[in-house]
């Protein structure tokens, strides 16, 4: 018992810097009274840092032949090493799953011996779960860079999501911290899986019973703040990967200095920046923004004080105010303080009469922010003609951001 506890703590500790946590997007159903399904995204608990725990996130082993400066498991790091057996991972997953602790398994691994040897072990685990344990829960598998196409294709038949990390937003950044890695080595497996997903989807149109291949798609991750890239470079990379490899998600992980290293700067994790990047990511995927509108040569970095949607609106005051009672879906969607669901509700509700301020508040829009960008039935005259800096200072003084201490350089006495 003590040995398995030690192994779990070592290998969970090493896996936690992979931030991917989603367990949704798959359509796997429970068949023939097996165990589990993977059609819901459920966060079963949250750690004290406020991140969700939906998957049992572990490494098969933290022995690794590579020496990437940003990684805890790098070969030169003097830490305890451990490795699970195939059966141990299967037992853990099944017993956690049956008690409703987790939504599924997130399996990654350090690279021992070579890529194929590692990938074979990972494949053995997912195959055993699906065929012997009749497990239909979620499985997220890390693709091992350099693994053979056959192994990747076979694994794709058992898992729900595959991912492979870009690690650093640009090739130059990556070369600096991990000379043995390259973005090219990431693109190859991403491309293999993408083609296969496409191929299975085509076949499904003709033949009904085609097995599912990586039904929840692929994702990737970038470390933020370890290398000097600006927000524009990061988001342009993300946007390109979304487009070229039909990724479901790009994750941004604020760099946490693990041990002092002369290549890397020592800083606190850039949580605010990470947050703003995720907000931008959402604007790209769900709000119809183009990455060039938000980040370009003129504005290479995101505004830390205000969210990117407000930032864009302040720069484009000529697009506002928008009339709540007549504007179309797309322009409502671009108003700061109004989200997708509120837009839907506004469109429904305004069929029954012109909307007033109190109704908008009740619908759940952030009126304090939105008021400078909209007109509704009873908007007082004169609010619409404010200048950019006036709006900005009013919003900042009205709202009390929970991140405010992060902006201020003033030390607090109390």
């Amino acid at each position: 018992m003590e040995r398995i506890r030690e192994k779990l703590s070592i290998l969970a500790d090493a896996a936690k810097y992979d931030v991917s946590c989603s367990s949704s997007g798959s359509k796997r159903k429970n068949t023939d009274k097996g165990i589990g399904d993977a059609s819901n995204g459920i966060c079963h608990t949250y750690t004290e840092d406020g991140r969700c725990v939906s998957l049992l996130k572990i490494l098969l082993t933290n022995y690794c032949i590579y020496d990437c400066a940003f990684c805890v498991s790098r070969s030169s790091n003097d830490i305890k090493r451990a490795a699970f057996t195939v059966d141990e991972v299967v037992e853990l997953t099944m017993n956690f799953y049956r008690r409703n602790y987790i939504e599924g398994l997130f399996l990654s691994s350090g690279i021992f011996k070579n890529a194929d040897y590692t990938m074979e072990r990972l494949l053995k685990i997912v195959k055993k779960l699906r065929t012997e344990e009749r497990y239909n829960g979620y499985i997220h598998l890390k693709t091992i860079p350099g693994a053979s196409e056959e192994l990747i294709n076979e694994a794709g038949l058992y898992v729900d999501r595959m991912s492979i990390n870009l690690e650093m937003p640009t090739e130059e950044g990556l070369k600096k911290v991990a000379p043995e890695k390259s973005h090219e080595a990431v693109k190859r497996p991403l491309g293999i899986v993408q083609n296969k997903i496409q191929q299975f989807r085509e076949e499904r149109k003709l033949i009904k019973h085609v097995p599912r291949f990586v039904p929840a798609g692929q994702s990737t991750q970038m470390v933020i703040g370890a290398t000097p890239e600006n927000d524009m470079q990061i988001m342009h990379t993300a946007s390109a990967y979304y487009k070229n490899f039909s990724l479901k998600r790009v994750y941004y992980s604020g760099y946490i200095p693990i041990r002092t290293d002369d290549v890397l700067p020592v800083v606190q994790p850039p949580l605010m920046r990470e947050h703003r990047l995720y907000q931008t990511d959402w604007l790209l995927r769900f709000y119809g923004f183009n990455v060039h509108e938000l980040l370009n040569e003129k504005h290479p970095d995101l505004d830390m004080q205000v969210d990117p949607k407000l930032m864009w609106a302040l720069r484009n005051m000529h697009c506002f105010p928008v009339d709540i009672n007549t504007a179309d879906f797309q322009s409502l969607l671009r108003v700061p303080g109004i989200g997708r669901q509120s837009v839907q509700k506004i469109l429904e509700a305004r069929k029954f009469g012109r909307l007033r301020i109190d109704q908008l508040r009740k619908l759940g829009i952030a009126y304090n922010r939105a008021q400078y960008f909209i007109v509704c039935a009873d908007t007082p005259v004169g609010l619409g003609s404010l200048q950019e800096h006036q709006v900005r200072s009013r919003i900042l003084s009205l709202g009390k951001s929970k991140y405010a201490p992060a902006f201020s350089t003033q030390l607090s006495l109390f």
Partner: protein
Amino acid sequence: MIYLFDKSFEGLLSAVFDRFEYRHDVSRLLPADQAQQVLFEETHTVYSSSAKSERVWKGIQAKADAAWQRIIYCAFLSELTEVHHTLFMVLVRLFAGQVNLKNFGDATVLLLSQTAKKVEREKHRMKAFIRFEKSEDGMYFARIAPDFNVIPLIITFFKNRYADQPWIIYDQKRLYGVLYDTDQVHHIRKLPEDLSDHMLPDKPVQMDEDETLYATLWRDYFKSTNIEARKNPKLHRQHVPKRYWHLLTEKKIIWE
């Protein structure tokens, strides 16, 4: 006129039936056990009947889409007197053709949809926070104490997911539960004697020999997956409110 009903869904729908049957001018719908609040107004006690409620439900199906049928049921499960009253009033106006359920500008419609959302959120929390404990005979047992009566909303989910293991989900607050015997789901009103011991905290009986091992491993995992440098206790409490802690394997205090 004040209507008194038995707090069941059938009762609420029967109240709507009675309202049209007797053409009363109803000012309020109250649970029968709150009848003492009524001083001067006349009261009418609604007798729940499946014949009446089924007819009303059919009418609702004709007038409201599937999403709204669910909102109506979820709002009922909130068990809040105020919401039950509003639900009754909205249903009466729905049959009188005086309300449009799509009009979120209408405060009563908005209250129902917002309450339903709260109930759905609680349902989702239960899907996440239920923790089964395996007993010696292979039964997976979970205790819950949700804010709203959400068991009816989660049965299918757990039945589909844990199809090959027997389980019990028991609501400590409302003193009822469901049992799945790997074939069918049964309602249980009161626990059998030997299982009721489970309800006493800190006195687990006849657990599976591996139960402690996996509970310990889960608590270990919960700790080691936390990143100390990002600590954010406020966010943690927002996501996992304290009122659920006593039933969460990873959060409850273990008396050694």
